[in-house]
Every structure is written in C-alpha cells, then in structure tokens.
C-alpha cells in the first residue's frame, strides 16, 4: 500500500547509502527496501484488513464513492472522524416532493427532486422533478428541474439547465459520464 514505518536511524542510514549508489532510482520498493533486505535488517509486514482502494481512475473513484453506500464496505462515522474544510452552510433541506433512497447527502444541499444510489456533496441544488441515479454530484452543482442524471460524475460548480438528460443508465456496456468543473450545460447544446 506504500505505507512504511521506519526506525529513524535506519531510514537515515539507508537513504544515505542509496544517495551514494550510482544508478539508483531512489524508489522505496525498488531500491531502499531491497537494500535493507540484503543487509539482513529486521523487516516485518503489517497486514491491513480494513477498507482500501486506489482511486486513480474514473471507475475506481466512482466505485469508492458507491462503497460508502454499501452495508459492510466503508463506513464514515464519528468514531473515526475524517477532518475536512467546511463551507459555512445550513443543514440540507429536503423538499415536500423529494425522494431520497440509498444515498449520502451533505450540508447546504437542497433536494427537491429524486436521488437514488448517489453521493450528493455540500451546496448541491437538485430541482423539482429532477432525477439523479447512480451518480456522484460534487459541491455546489446546480441541477435544474426535470433533468435526468444517470451514471455520472459531475465535478464542482457545474450548472445544468432544465429538462436535460446527462449520462446513460448504468448497464453492462455503459460508461461513466464525467462533466468537468464549472461547466455550464443548457438547452442550446453541450454534453447530452
């Protein structure tokens, strides 16, 4: 997982040796650890049993978000606080005709439409009769009324005009639709 704990004196020693080794790529996995192994240093592995995911691709980023909705995968709670920056926003408001199922919603959001299997960041506005499914909607996105959003990652501060369809329903051959930060999508065209 790329996480190591060293005795400080040993780390200093082997980094200095590595520094003086011509042709070393100075990589922990490729150079430093093998060097210590050859020198017969006491090295142990610690087996981690918790949730772990590399989120370096669009699919894995989407999946990691969805893992938050699973029963036994990755749970955020006050027992192990993840600290973050906070916008000064009120609690989220859920309207009279809203529907929210199997989703996570953050502060400052206003949900007037339907949200299913999705992650809603702070300050997101979802208009009346809009439907958001299987998607990750990042902070301060505005989705106007009657929109249908499927299987998408929508980056921060995107504005989506009324009555638009974004993304294709999740299925075997559909791909995740990604809308870049601060995009403005309206009826005059754009990504549909």
């Amino acid at each position, binding site marked *: 997982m790329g996480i190591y704990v060293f005795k400080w004196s040993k780390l200093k020693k082997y980094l200095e040796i590595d520094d003086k080794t011509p042709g070393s790529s100075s990589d922990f996995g490729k150079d430093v650890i093998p060097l210590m192994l050859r020198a017969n240093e006491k090295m142990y592995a610690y087996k981690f049993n918790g949730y772990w995911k590399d989120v370096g691709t669009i699919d894995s980023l989407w999946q990691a978000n969805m893992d*938050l*909705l699973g029963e036994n995968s990755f749970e*955020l*709670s*006050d027992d192990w*606080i*993840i*600290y*973050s920056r*906070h916008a*000064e*926003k*009120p*609690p*989220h*408001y*859920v*309207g*009279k*005709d*809203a*529907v*929210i*199922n*199997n*989703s*996570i*919603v*953050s*502060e400052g959001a*206003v949900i007037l439409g339907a*949200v299913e299997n999705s*992650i*809603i*960041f*702070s300050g997101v506005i979802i208009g009346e009769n809009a439907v958001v499914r299987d998607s990750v909607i990042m902070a301060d996105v505005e989705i106007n009324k009657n929109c249908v959003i499927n299987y998408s990652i929508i980056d921060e501060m995107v504005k989506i005009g009324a009555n638009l369809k974004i993304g294709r329903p999740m299925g075997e051959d559909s791909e995740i639709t990604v809308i870049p930060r601060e995009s403005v999508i309206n009826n005059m065209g754009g990504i549909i």
Partner: protein
Amino acid sequence: MNALGIIFSDMRDWSMTELASHRSVAAIPFGGRYRLIDFPLSNMVNSGINKVYLITSSNYRSLMEHVGSGKDWDLSRKNGGILTIPPYSAGENHGLYQGRLDALKRVLDYIKSSKESYVVLSDSDMIYDINYNKVIKYHEEKNSDITAVYIKTDINKSDSIHKILYEFDEDGRADDILVYPVTNGNYNIGLNTWVMNKEFLESLIYDAIARNYKDFSFDVLSARVHSLRIYGYEYSGFFAHIDSLQSYYENSMKLLNMDTLKSIFYSNTGPIYTKTKDSAPTKYCKDAIIKNSLIANGCIIEGTVENSILFRDVKVGKNAVVKNSIIMQHGRISDNANINSIITDTYAFVNKDRVLLGYSNCPFFIKKNSVV
C-alpha cells in the same frame, strides 16, 4: 470596525425553562446545526466587529464549550477576539446579575479598557440578520445617545410578552417607550439591540451606580426617554424571538420554508458561523422516506422523516416515523417508534415501538439524556 460588541447570553431565561434548564439561552441548539449565540455573533463578525464581550450569568458550561476560543467565528486573535465574562462568585459585586444594567456595571472596567468608539449591545434570543455599520451610520447622522433597532409588526402574531415598544416622533426620535406592556396591534418592537457611543455608555453606568439602577429598560429607556436622544433604526427582514418552548418550535418550523431558509443563511450580510464538527454527510438507507425536512450531517436515516428538523448525529431506525418534530444532537429514534410534534433535547433515546404524540400548539418536550 470601530465598535465593541457586547452580547448577553441570557437576559430572560425564566420563560425558557425546558430548553435553558441546563444551559444558557445563548447555547440553545437551533436550526439543525447552530446555537442561538451564532446569530448575534455572526451579525457582529459580518459587520467587521472583532472584539466581543460575552456576558454569561449561570449554567454557561455548554456555551463555553461551543464558543471555545472563538476560532470558528474568526475571533481567536491577539487584538480583540471574544472574551466570555462570567459573574464573580465572591468578593465585591459577586453573584448573579440583576438585570442588564447591573451586568454592565460589573464589566465596566472591561468597557473602559477597550479603545473602540462605539458599543453594540445585543441579546441572544433573537434571530435576525443585520449589518451594524448601517445602524452606527444612522446613529452618527442623528447624533443620538442611544439607537435602538426595532421591527414594525403586529404584536398579536407573537406569543412573546417580553417586548419593549417604541413610539417615535416625525424625526424618528423616541417619545415613549413601554416595557413589557399588555397590548395588541401594530407596534415598533425593539430587537433588544442598541448602539451607543462608548463614552456615553460609561456615563450611563456611572449614573446607574450612583442611583442604584439595575434595569436598563425601565431605569434608562423608559424613565429617560425625554432627556436622552433615543432614536430607532428600522429592521425589516426575517425576525424570530425565541423566548418560550412554543416560539422555539414555531420559529424552528419556519426554517422548512425555502424562502426563510435563504433569507437567514444566504443573505448579503454573510454566512452564519458555528462550531464545526467534521461529521460525515448524512446517509439515507434503502427504505428511507424523507419529506420537507432540514437534516444536519452525521445522521443515518432508515425510516420516515417528515416536516422535521434533525440535528447532527441523529439515527432514525427501520420503520420508525418522525413527524413535525425537532431531534437535537445525538438523538436515537429506534425501530418502529412513532413520534409526532416532539422536541427531544440532546442525547435523547426513544426505544423500539414507542409512540409519542404532542400537538402543534403544544409540542411535547423530552429532556436531555432521557430514555423513553
């Protein structure tokens, strides 16, 4: 800004017995993630006031915990910042304050030591959104001794009896001030917010010491209305006076209106600051049903929530139904429980299958740490 803020944490807590039984009025949780103190404090910070004295009287532990160093309001600073002033328990001038003027007497040395030219006095039980710079400008224009912020409203619309009513002449100068009158109709109701020159406030306090005055409303405003230049500054936005369980409930429920929500939390004056807890966002499970509600972070909802306000870290179990209710921090509503028109204080636990019913004009209150 050249003004000192003074906030009174509880001037009238006798009518808030349930919510203020173990905390200052200023520390009463409101609006899903705030405490009442956040509103006057944010008004001050948004107006550029960076020195605030918070005058507490009793049971101020949760208030101290909430305000802390003041860093969440950007009031943790070397020059100015927030200073919480509890009463002395022994020595000269010890004991609880007997009124606003008495409280001011006890902090006279702090007032004298501050270098600001103006003082803004505010209570903690009123929610409104104002830029004090405009009030101070008006105060200067009228060359007033005291400028009182007021709202024109029908007194019948509020159940509060603790009102100060102002009558003004054509120039806007007060020519009569009534304290807690029994009346109805349209009046200029004071928001218990006053602007004064600091030196003038000092002179008022000296006078109060010499004459043993203790009550600002009666002994200064009402008694000296003709000798002092008291002017009114009209405020016309959203206003709520939280001074009973009923007004707490009604004004909380007003937040379920989008326009009200916007006018309070997204106004031009600035955001409402509060202590941040870094909770995870709220999770709605597969069978959750949620309508017309205000939900803070850190909740897990498996059942039904309608027309309600949920504070941070509230759990609503499977098939549980929460309607027309306010559930404060760390509340637990277990599976199959059914509650309607209930206010639960922090850490309340409602067991499985319990049915609790209040009524909209008589919400049922459940004390802190109660297990039902």
